[in-house]
């Protein structure tokens, strides 16, 4: 077991090194001079030259790369050109919002997805099965940002049930503790009995989390169904049934437990994808997370910020996949032995 984990961890270093290298060269070799792009077409040559010098762009490419690597290893991602702040600090400020959104989207899609998948598998070929699988297929075929807009149109504008965007009613001012507003709200509720923060945070979370969770929900439902069908066909389930064990117990205690393996993998993979998928949802819901921040960085060609953002998101993605792989090998010994 430990050997397997060590092996996976040792693969992590070259992958991350590769990611950093690829990001650096992609940006360095992109057409156009970053300094010129940042300052605009009409900037004078002197200003461009000065910025090039400040950014170290006048040095040979390999020297730039070496310097960049040295800085990244020390977790120094440089300074944002637009704001002048440290990129790492900006990321730290925006990451919790994205993490929180992704967690809630994942909770929603996992619970509902597994429930629908199990239901479809038990009622195979019934109208419930056809209906939910058809809906799942529609779910994966939909542009997320469009769904988000339709949600706003129906639930915010027409029915006035939820806010159109943001993380919190601006009337409530508070200093974030963890940066995860629902958790912060909970802490405040316990400390001072004030429930306004947590209620407002949850209220703002509903629409973005459901919109972001739709695709994972559909994928989880489909995987759960096929995985459950496979398990339900096996002999030990038939034995359990013929032994007179209650159907509910057979399904949740014996079948689902074994069907969970592929589901776990998909959930992990989807969580990683949510972090980047958030770029669209956050833009629609004016959610002040990393996705929206990165989008603005790309828009204003703030290269240090773009580099830093991509590295952080990809690293998180790689780490989540690693955790999933390890978890998977814990529950399924066949993997680590092969």
């Amino acid at each position, binding site marked *: 077991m430990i050997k397997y984990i060590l092996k996976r961890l040792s693969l992590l270093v*070259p*992958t*991350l090194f*590769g*990611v950093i290298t*690829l990001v650096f060269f*992609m*940006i360095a070799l*992109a*057409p*156009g001079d970053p300094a010129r792009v940042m300052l605009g077409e009409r900037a004078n040559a002197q200003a461009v030259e000065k910025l090039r010098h400040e950014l170290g762009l006048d040095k040979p490419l390999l020297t730039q790369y070496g310097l960049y690597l040295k800085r990244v290893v020390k977790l120094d991602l440089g300074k944002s050109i637009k704001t002048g702040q440290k990129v790492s600090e900006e990321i730290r400020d925006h990451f919790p919002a994205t993490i929180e959104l992704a967690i809630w989207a994942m909770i929603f899609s996992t619970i509902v997805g597994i429930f629908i998948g199990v239901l479809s598998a038990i009622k195979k070929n019934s109208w419930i099965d056809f209906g939910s699988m058809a809906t799942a*297929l*529609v779910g*994966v*075929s*939909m*542009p*997320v*940002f*469009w*769904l988000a*807009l*339709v949600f*706003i*149109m129906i639930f915010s*504008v027409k029915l006035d049930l939820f806010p159109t965007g943001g993380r919190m009613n601006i009337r409530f001012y508070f200093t974030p503790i963890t940066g995860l507003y629902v958790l912060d709200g909970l802490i405040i509720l316990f400390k001072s009995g004030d429930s306004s923060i947590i209620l407002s945070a949850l209220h703002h979370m509903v629409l973005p989390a459901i919109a972001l969770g739709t695709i994972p929900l559909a994928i989880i439902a489909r995987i759960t169904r*096929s995985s459950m*069908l*496979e398990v339900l066909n096996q002999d030990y389930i038939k034995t359990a049934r013929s032994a007179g064990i209650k159907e509910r117990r057979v399904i949740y205690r014996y079948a689902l437990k074994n069907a969970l393996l592929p589901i776990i993998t998909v959930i992990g993979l989807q969580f*990683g*994808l949510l*972090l*980047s*998928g958030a*770029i*669209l949802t956050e*833009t*629609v819901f004016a959610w002040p997370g990393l996705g929206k921040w990165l*989008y603005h960085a*790309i*828009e204003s*060609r703030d290269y240090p910020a*773009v580099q830093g953002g*991509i590295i952080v*998101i*990809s690293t998180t*993605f*790689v780490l989540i996949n690693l955790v999933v792989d390890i978890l998977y090998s814990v529950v399924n010994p066949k993997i680590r032995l092969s």
Partner: protein
Amino acid sequence: MDTKNKLEKNSLMKEALFQLKGNKPAIVGFVIIVSFIIMAFFSPFLTPFEPETQDISIRKMAPFISSHILGTDDLGRDLLTRIIYGSRISLTIGTISVGISLTFGLLIGLISGYFGGWVDRIIMRFIDIMLAFPYILLTIVIVALLGPSLINAMIAIGISQIPSYARVVRASVLAEKENDYVMAERSLGASDKELMFKSILPNCIAPIFVQATLGVGNAILSSAALSFLGLGAQPPTPEWGLMIASSREFVTSAWWIVTFPGIAVLLTVLGFNLLADGLRDVLDPRMKS
């Protein structure tokens, strides 16, 4: 030998087609796709309006009450016309970007799987690194670096899908090259090139075909997303994602401008997903649940 091979292949194709006929979702998907292809080819004959002609006097006209069946947008352009012409753009993006990923993915996967050894290790290492970037992020970054435009969007979508194609191809090449017929042909003096392209590749087509069908749908979704972020098609192009993006300010006043372009994307992608599901059932019996 050759004719026998051909006959066998033909009957396999026939059988696959026959099975596909019995697969209702696949047929629905196929019909949807064909309808959009017809829309794309015959756009000018299907609507009396022009996609880019503005007429402020009829702006934001509601749907189903006039000759503008789906209403008009904020500049008085006929929405249905723009959606019809949009099918040209979306199908083109889908086909070209899948063409890019397919060509390179096929070559890379074939080389990696066929030669194995250090070639395979280096290629797979690189593919792993590319897969370490979440797909949509990679697409956004590439297009941002190349500069926002429809063509660059196609290139970006094409490039960022290469790794998944390469992996699919490599996996089936690895399984295929162990077969006796490959050994037999090799011992008869077939060159690497002949073995790769004439013997192994045709037998790996099934999973690649499924992947490509799914890929067209995905590419259409991604291009809509890129245009929505302002990184793809530029106004006044009737691209569906761009139409959704420019409708954002009308969520309170004109629901149809928001709704219909999204339904067009949804239907097209659904068509490809349905067909891909059906193809997978028919072509790859192992995947059947």
